């Protein structure tokens, strides 16, 4: 009986020590923010000084762009950027609830609404990439090489060929819905699979089922090697995917790290960062994103 109590005590002690270690542990970079020239807002205590919470989409995070870009910002301002990657819908919801400091998403209509509702100060163009219509090599609907995305969708619907949809109100899904609307079709039926999942999972399902799907170029390039799907339609302007950055409105949520968020926006839109974005190449050697900020456009007129 004594031995058992001793062992139990030892286990609890170890757990307690782990716990204490956990309480002391800070995220991998330990920033000490420099005193800023602007006095902090008197009433608001910033949630975690020296940290910026960026809510973005899974496809943006998975593309690797942020791991490539963010260290520059972190080093320059001596802060840590915590990235929460979820679907566009969820990212905007996080912004509306004030749980993030800045958003980087690609769902234009929703972004404009976000700002109009007062949750964000303003929306700025950052970059764009494009979407691709992918499908099995066999191409049962015969859409390969078409230049009109809506028309291609119409042919898929007509052939009742299987189509895998994100179904999760993400930027990709919103874009897909726009194209269906343009083709005047409400997709339904056994052939239309609404998955409610991220891009990666959707691609996997499409591969398994030999289905068509809409994917962003970034995820496609990342998965290209083992994908089993081919690019069938690309280049239509309707397939362009613009990204926007929005700082969450401190008037609505005083605890957001407003100053740092604005610095982030400024940095992201700067010509220097934009050139870095253009230089980001996928392993295949092809660029993933195209810079599109106002500053960059002005410099490259």
């Amino acid at each position, binding site marked *: *009986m004594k*031995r*058992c*109590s001793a*062992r*139990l005590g030892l*286990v*609890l002690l*170890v*757990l*307690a020590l*782990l*716990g204490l*270690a*956990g309480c002391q*542990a800070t*995220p*991998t*970079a330990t920033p000490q923010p420099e005193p800023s020239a602007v006095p902090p807002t008197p009433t608001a205590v910033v*949630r*975690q000084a020296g940290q910026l*919470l960026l809510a973005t989409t*899974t496809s943006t995070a*998975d593309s690797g762009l942020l*791991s490539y870009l963010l260290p520059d910002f972190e080093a320059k301002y001596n802060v840590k950027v*915590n*990235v*929460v*990657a*979820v679907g566009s819908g969820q990212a905007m919801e996080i912004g*509306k*609830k*004030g*749980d993030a400091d800045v958003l980087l998403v690609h769902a234009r209509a929703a972004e404009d609404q976000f700002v109009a509702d007062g949750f964000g100060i303003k929306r700025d163009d950052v970059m764009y990439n494009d979407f691709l219509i992918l499908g099995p090599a066999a191409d049962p609907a015969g859409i390969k090489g078409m230049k009109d995305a809506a028309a291609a969708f119409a042919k898929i619907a007509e052939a009742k060929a299987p189509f895998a949809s994100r179904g999760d109100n993400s930027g990709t899904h919103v874009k897909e819905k726009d194209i269906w609307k343009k083709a005047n079709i409400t997709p339904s039926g056994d052939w239309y699979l609404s998955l409610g*999942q*991220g*891009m*990666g*999972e959707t*691609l*996997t399902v499409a591969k398994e089922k030999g289905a068509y799907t809409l994917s962003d170029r970034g995820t496609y390039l*990342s*998965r290209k090697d*083992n994908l089993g799907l081919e690019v069938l339609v690309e280049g239509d302007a309707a397939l362009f995917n613009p990204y926007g950055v929005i700082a969450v409105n401190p008037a609505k*949520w005083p*605890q957001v790290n407003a100053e740092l968020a604005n610095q982030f926006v400024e940095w992201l839109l700067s010509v220097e960062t934009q050139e870095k974005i253009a230089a980001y190449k996928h392993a295949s050697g092809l660029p993933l994103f195209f810079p599109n900020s106002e500053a960059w456009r002005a410099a490259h007129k």
Partner: protein
Amino acid sequence: MGDLFRGAIQALRLILALDPQVLSILGLTLRVTGIALLFSTLIGVPLGGLFALRRFVGKRVVIAFLYTGMGLPPVVVGLFVYLLLSRSGPLGYLGWLFTPRAMIVSQVIISLPLVVGFTMASVMGVDPDLRRQLASLGATSWQATWAILKEARTGVIVSIVAGFGSIISEVGAVMLVGGNIEGYTRTLTTAIVLETRKGSFDLAIALGIILLALSFVANVAMLSLQGKRLGE
């Protein structure tokens, strides 16, 4: 099956190379689950003993809630904790959302009913006359309760094992309230979801194997606490 084999090899490689990312993920997983389990045990075992040994008003209703709690879907717990800790929520001022603390809170909520429920059941299985016997030997109420809990030792350990199992493998809640932030709130389970989503099945399987190994080692450790009693 090739995936599985490749995954196993990669798992070994990652561990032997002490890959820093994997170590960080492993460390966080251990911290979050360890602390959550500690709280669940410290609160849950005495509570389970209490439920087993005492009568009180509304006991039936409380037990009904307890049973429901034992089957809570983790992602629902995550959603609830999210809304609680969100800046727009009642406890937003704590600033715990998207930090390990939020993850610990949800894991405590998930595992606590299991610890309470199984402890309660095993204490109820102890001879009811034992309490009288201990009292006649001069035990105070607390001393008797402690001795009874030790009698129910095997069941209590199982309750902790059940609590551990419920949270080490859980992904919905920690994903929601932790945000899967690299180097900060990324655990083994959320990392597996991420890698699967990105199509890196090998790495996902490797992480899965590490998770299983971790779980196995922890359970062996808890088995040793049960001592010789199991063999009898």
